[in-house]
């Protein structure tokens, strides 16, 4: 029996086209020959799938035909829930929107971080603070410069810093600014006549920028009585003030007004004055018109024009009182008799000159 014949027989059998005798005969044949039996099973499966497939195709085409009759587009329009445009925008573009938002946030945070705005909420305030910080740094460096003074006019290459000091007692106690003698190995004071005396640092108050020197030189003879007094109270705004100092090798005079009773950043330690202060003026006396010492010249503000500082005398007096008794040979008695009061400024300065010293500082950092 060839293949075609067999297939035909199988189809006839499955379609029920055989007579009962033929069926029996065929079934017997299948049992007898397993190869034919397998072929029958295989064809039965195939035919079944084929039938289902054709049924499915028929059903699908029927459904497709029905579907054709429906106006899907109109129906879809009706049934579509139309969310508000913003929701739609979000749905369609949420990934892009998210990315954009993250970048924006990142950029803003980055900018804020880089510009330092995170350090403080109030932008102006921090700016101000920084400025103040800068000013302080600048005043410090100015103090250094002040102390350094120009070495070109220096006779002694070894002296590093220069400042000014003034006598507080006739026996050789000199007041100056702490930053002038800071880190000093040795200190010399030089009077207006150009005579130099070795001095010790007797006492310092770095927080108030005050230092007290004592002339420890055998060649030093006591000064004549101090002509000026120290004003205990606070001076008034707009008062005429002047100073004498050694920004150069010779005594230098300058005057101005007391512009504020508060120092840098509201510091009650200092006065603000409009006297022009130059490097080397530090430690000099700030005088009022009646010949009272009202302060110790301290520093200059580099950011603003004409703003200079002097430590108030009350702090100087306090410092003098704080000098340990055992470091003194005899008790300090400050002059209470002002002999400058009635004199003109020119006459005052002429007298004052003898009590103002140039402070030379050697060594140190």
């Amino acid at each position, binding site marked *: 029996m060839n*293949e*075609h014949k067999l*297939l*035909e027989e199988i189809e006839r059998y499955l379609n029920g086209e055989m007579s009962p005798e033929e069926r029996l005969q065929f079934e017997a044949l299948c049992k007898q020959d397993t190869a034919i039996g397998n072929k029958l099973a*295989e*064809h039965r499966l*195939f035919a079944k*799938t*084929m*039938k*289902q*497939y*054709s049924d*499915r*195709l*028929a*059903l*699908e085409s*029927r*459904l*497709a035909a*029905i*579907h054709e*009759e*429906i106006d*899907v*587009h109109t*129906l*879809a329009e009706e*049934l*579509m*829930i139309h969310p508000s445009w913003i929701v739609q925008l979000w749905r369609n573009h949420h990934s892009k929107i998210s990315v954009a938002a993250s970048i924006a946030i990142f950029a803003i945070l980055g900018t804020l971080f880089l510009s330092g705005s995170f350090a403080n909420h109030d932008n102006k305030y921090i700016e101000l603070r920084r400025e103040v910080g800068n000013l302080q740094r600048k005043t410090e460096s100015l103090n250094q410069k002040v102390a350094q003074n120009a070495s070109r006019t220096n006779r002694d290459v070894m002296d590093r810093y220069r400042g000014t000091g003034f006598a507080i007692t006739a026996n050789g106690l000199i007041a100056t600014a702490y930053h002038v003698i800071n880190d000093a190995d040795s200190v010399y004071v030089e009077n207006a006549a150009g005579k130099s005396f070795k001095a010790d640092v007797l006492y310092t108050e770095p927080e108030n920028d005050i230092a007290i020197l004592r002339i420890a030189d055998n060649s030093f003879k006591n000064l004549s009585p101090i002509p000026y007094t120290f004003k205990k109270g606070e001076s008034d705004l707009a008062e005429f003030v002047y100073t004498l100092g050694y920004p150069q090798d010779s005594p230098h005079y300058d005057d101005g007004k007391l512009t504020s009773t508060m120092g840098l950043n509201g510091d009650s330690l200092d006065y603000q004055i409009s006297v022009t202060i130059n490097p080397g003026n530090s430690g000099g006396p700030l005088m009022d018109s009646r010949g009272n010492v009202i302060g110790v010249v301290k520093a200059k503000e580099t950011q603003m024009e004409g703003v200079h500082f002097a430590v108030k005398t009350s702090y100087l007096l306090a410092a003098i009182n704080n000098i340990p008794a055992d470091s003194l040979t005899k008790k300090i008695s400050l002059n209470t008799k002002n002999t400058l009061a009635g004199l003109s400024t020119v006459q005052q300065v002429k007298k004052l000159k003898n009590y103002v010293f140039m402070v030379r500082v050697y060594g140190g950092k």
Partner: protein
Amino acid sequence: MNKELKGPIPTDSEVILGILNNSESVLNRLYIAYFPMVLQLIINNNGTADDAKDIYQEAIIILYNKIKAGDFELSSKLKTFIYSVCRRLWLKRLSQMNRYGGDIRDFEDYSPVEDDEVDKQNELAIQFTKMESALQLLGEPCKTIMEDFYIHNRSMQDICERFGYTNADNAKTQKYKCLQRLKKLFFQQK
């Protein structure tokens, strides 16, 4: 669309009887009655009208086959059954496309549909794709002869005339040759 087809929504038992009796009009009314519901489900859940058509037809075929096989028990409303099957199919399709966001907007009640219902349908679908591609691979004229005979149920005589065979025996021989090749192609496919 004629009036008869546009009749009222058929009752559930009407549908079952109608399908068992191969009623064209019942199938029509059934299809038209529930399509909007499914369309609404799909287009409001990231789908298109074409997706809705595919899903709905698949669901109708599942229903149709179940009724024909005689194992359809109406445990809930027919509407709920169709909606649930479509919902299940659509969720499956969405996750295949990686478009499933985790939630679906529902418009009707639904009851859980057993997975094997859908899986059985998948099994069949695989067989049908096999058959389809086997027919494609078969080439002409075999493909047309096979389709005419087995799908369109044409007689050997018809086929004989269409292809200009001189006698029915020649046509028969040709048919068997084609059938054998088709079977080979079908069973070879994995």
